[in-house]
């Protein structure tokens, strides 16, 4: 079974904002929807937004999701996150923000957070009357025909999440996870996505420290804690404290949560070890 955070499980067992927002014909409000995924892909989300026209604010959000635990939790989290935001503020939400809200997702489940971000973007673009390119209808522009992923979408997710391997791409957008015939194209796209020059050591350590700080409340809630000990190249040495130090599943915490989060937030090549 996957190692889900408490927040993921809480929002799966008790999802908030499930359902539909009907357009009541109120002149001061608009209802918009964004649909992403399909039954073939195994994940699908229909996001409903109620928008106050004068203020450009999202006053209500609901979801309908077909998918696994993390898909349902990501959808529910998204609706909580966007309520009260202006549309521009909502558009700034990334899939990583959704994953962070959930206390992290297993890397193989990051596509659930991507689905949330894309549904949000679609709903807002629909409201604003901006047409999104429908790559799914144009087989020629698709890189992955099994999961209907275009090159443009791949580049966006790769850049936003600083992905470096085809395996990560599969986890985030599923592309390449079907017949596998597009893997060489994905490699080419990865190679073409040049990231800015790397961080300095000080920037890297500061980012690691900040990321660990963001995780501590989740560990402390379970009676544990974590502290940075040292950084040697890509090896991050941490001290697990309290329940995390003695817990039978501390390795899961170390690898499944801390290492995964640091790889997402700082550098994909990082490994974490307890001292």
């Amino acid at each position: 079974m996957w190692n889900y955070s408490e927040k993921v499980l809480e929002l799966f067992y008790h999802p908030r904002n499930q359902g539909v927002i009907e357009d009541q014909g109120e002149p001061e409000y608009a209802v918009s929807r964004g649909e992403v995924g399909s039954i073939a892909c195994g994940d699908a989300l229909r996001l409903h937004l109620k928008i106050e026209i004068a203020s450009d604010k999202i006053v209500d959000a609901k979801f309908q999701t077909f998918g696994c635990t993390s898909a349902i939790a990501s959808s529910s989290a998204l609706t909580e996150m966007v309520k009260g935001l202006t549309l521009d503020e909502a558009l700034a939400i990334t899939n990583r923000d959704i994953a962070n809200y959930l206390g992290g997702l297993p890397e193989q489940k990051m596509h659930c957070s991507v689905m949330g971000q894309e549904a949000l973007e679609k709903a807002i673009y629909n409201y604003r009357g901006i047409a999104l390119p429908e790559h799914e209808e144009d087989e020629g522009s698709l890189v992955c025909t099994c999961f209907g992923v275009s090159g443009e979408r791949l580049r966006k997710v790769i850049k936003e999440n600083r992905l470096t391997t085809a395996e990560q791409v599969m986890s985030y957008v599923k592309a390449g996870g079907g017949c596998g015939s597009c893997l060489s194209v994905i490699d080419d796209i990865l190679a073409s996505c040049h990231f800015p020059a790397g961080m300095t050591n000080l920037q890297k350590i500061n980012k690691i420290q900040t990321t660990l700080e963001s995780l501590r409340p989740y560990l402390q809630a379970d009676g544990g804690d974590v502290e940075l000990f040292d950084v040697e190249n890509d090896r991050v040495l941490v001290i697990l404290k309290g329940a995390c130090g003695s817990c039978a599943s501390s390795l899961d915490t170390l690898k499944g949560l801390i290492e995964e989060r640091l790889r997402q937030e700082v550098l994909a090549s990082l490994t974490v070890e307890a001292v």
Partner: protein
Amino acid sequence: MTIYLDNNATTQVDERVLAAMLPYLTEFYGNPSSMHRFGGQVAKAVQTAREQLADLIGALPSEIIFTSCGTEGNNAAIRSALATFPDRKHIITTQVEHACVLNLCKTLEKQGYRVTYLSVDSRGMLDLMELEAALTGDTAVVSTMYANNETGVIFPVEQIGALVKSYGALFHVDAVQAVGKIPIHLQNSTIDFLTLSGHKFHAPKGVGALFVRRGVRFRPLLIGGHQERNRRGGTENVAGIVGLGQAALLAQQHLAQMQSVQALRDHLEASVLRTIPDTVVNGQGSPRLPNTTNIGFKYIEGEAILLLLDREGICASSGSACTSDSLEPSHVLRAMGLPYSVLHGSIRFSLSRYTTEAEVEQLLAVLPGIVAQLRALSPFNAADQGWIEERTQAVVPK
């Protein structure tokens, strides 16, 4: 209380099996290859287990090679068959085999062998005409399951074997899911090799066996000492083997009881179909193992069902991609050509002789609510099906 309905994954060790094993972990710890009496009494226990297992499958004790697991048995049989026919470069198997057969075949393809993966129909059944068309004088071995681990569908192995024999090829059957659940008689069978694994019928994990018909040439996978009549090197897992023998003895006694397991399974299926709409039994209409049912709950996803069942203390299994690192749902259900609305939400319930009516009733009490809860979340619920996209994909073993 845990309600365990995942017996095709593994079973609990019968306490009588454990009791038979314990002395061979404590008091009788000799090496069965030793010449002294301390080793001799252990060798005798291994021989008794060999006889008990042979009795269960209607074989001769000398036709049994103890192994570590089903994977080892399957690998050993297929590789042995290929070594027997160095000039034949063709293998036939099916699209719905266990990963240890499919992945071995993929490896062999890279080594120059040609592999035919037979398809199955929507009921999970093979087309014997397709098999006959695939067989040639170049075919070294045909490897099929006896019964499928996900759907329980039973293949007509003797009919398959008759065709295989007419082309002079060897016939291997992966019977890991079938042994102990249905009667198997190998004495007058067309099967040359048959694989079984102890932990599927109440023996511990880490012990299995391969039947090799007398007279069929066998090339060992593990080269070592003289153990298993030079057919499998390595000191015997004595306690495991003793447990396997005891489990075989008990399985034979309990075979008649499988009718009541089937009655319970049938009750489970019928009740689910009656009380939960948009639900199908995968493989229904084909002969199936008495303990297995694979049910597709349309418009919802398997992992979510499993997690809600788990919260109720009920353990089952899913063919859903979301329960594994793979992004593709079950290769078995895909090979059957099931629509995506079914296969993403398919759950396997596998019973054992320990499964009680009360446990099944408890499942039936909570399952409709779980399905309704997830369907209420789904955009594909019965009231709103405008967005369903049933894209299909060619099934090619990867």
